[in-house]
């Protein structure tokens, strides 16, 4: 019990620190004050209440009042739901049960999707605006360089494997081969259907 309480305290603290960096998120969370979402996690079994409100989201294992919405799912699915960009698809999973006012959950999800952490502002509190801006520029420059380098590397490796080394086929060739295979599969299906039709006993007009 104490371990899970400590863990929840840590997660709640981290969330509060993140929300502190985005005043708009804090304001939007305040509109959900008094609402409660129950997460029923399966495998392992765990009940967790999300209590959004002014200044953050409280995480609790005990809550004595009615909840607005209950989300029940295996832990693995909830983890995917938290991390995936394609949440709508996951929400249709048969393993997931959602009851109550689902809008509360959707609103909370949207608020966290829009969370933009201003790291430079956080740094400025400690280092001052000039140093924070310099570090921010450095971080942004590094991120851009890493992004560009990753794209460039992907393209170069792809070209080498397809054009120079001839280890892999190119995308155009692969697409053409896939289209041919698809067409061949359709033809086989048609042929199969025709053979089955020919194998049926012939029925004349008198049988009708």
């Amino acid at each position: 019990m104490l371990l899970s309480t400590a863990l929840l305290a840590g997660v709640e603290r981290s969330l509060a620190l993140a929300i502190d960096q985005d005043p708009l998120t804090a304001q939007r969370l305040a509109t959900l004050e008094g609402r409660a979402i129950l997460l029923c996690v399966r495998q392992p079994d765990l009940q967790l209440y999300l209590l959004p409100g002014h200044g953050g989201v409280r995480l609790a294992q005990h809550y004595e009042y009615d909840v607005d919405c209950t989300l029940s799912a295996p832990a693995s699915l909830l983890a995917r739901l938290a991390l995936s960009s394609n949440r709508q698809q996951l929400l249709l999973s048969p393993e997931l049960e959602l009851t109550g006012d689902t809008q509360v959950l959707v609103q909370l999800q949207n608020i966290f999707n829009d969370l933009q952490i201003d790291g430079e502002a956080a740094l400025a509190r400690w280092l001052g605006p000039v140093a924070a801006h310099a570090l921010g520029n450095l971080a942004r420059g590094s991120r851009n360089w890493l992004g560009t380098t990753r794209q460039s590397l992907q393209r170069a490796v792809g070209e080498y494997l397809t054009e120079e080394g001839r280890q892999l086929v190119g995308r155009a060739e692969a697409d053409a081969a896939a289209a041919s295979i698809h067409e061949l599969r359709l033809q086989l299906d048609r042929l199969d259907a025709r053979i089955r039709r020919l194998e049926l006993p012939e029925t004349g007009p008198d049988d009708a």
Partner: protein
Amino acid sequence: MTDKSSTDRTTHFGYQTVRESEKAAKVAEVFHSVAAKYDLMNDLMSGGVHRIWKRFTIELSGVRPGNRVLDIAGGTGDLTRKFSSLVGPTGEVVLADINASMLRVGRDRLLDKGVAGNVRFVQADAEKLPFPDNHFDCITIAFGLRNVTHKEDAIASMLRVLKPGGRLLVLEFSKPENELLSKAYDQYSFTMLPLIGRMVTGDPESYRYLAESIRMHPDQETLKGMMETAGFARVTYHNMTGGIVALHRGIKP
């Protein structure tokens, strides 16, 4: 309360037996001595676990926006700070402590952290709470009940000021469930605590009192019985850290 019978009656102050009239002053001395470094000592003595015990207390309190909460023996205001944000601007939290030094440290600390507006500070004796009947939605007393001279009177006083349906939460040191843990805990309490007390506050006696007063405090079942006798309903308790600390909860019918 100056009649002969009351001055002759005795009670415990740690392992010592003292006159009832002297206990409050002796407890006050202890807390005057440790007030300035109370939080640091709590962290050192419990390894920070006291924060988790308090968090669990807040979870079970069920406090909501608009509620009126009394934090008795609130000391340096750990619980009050959290309750203040939970009850919001429409609610109220009263931080009460019999000890002026502790109350001053708590008030300064809360104001420094910007906790104000819905918090009041009252120097009050838990046995004679200066509040109207049926006034609070929730009362908490964390690590304070064992220092009260007449525990039954304090529990009755809390019952009086609670609203019907209101909750009393008593967070207090208790009796470890496991014999081995109990022995290790005794060793820790009577050797390490006074040592830490000597190093940090220069006052090992206050921390020896702490260890002794814990041993003299009623165990889980006894305290539960006391709350039921006072008139609380649905009294339950949760052992934490193997029973070193227990959280009792009762509802005013």
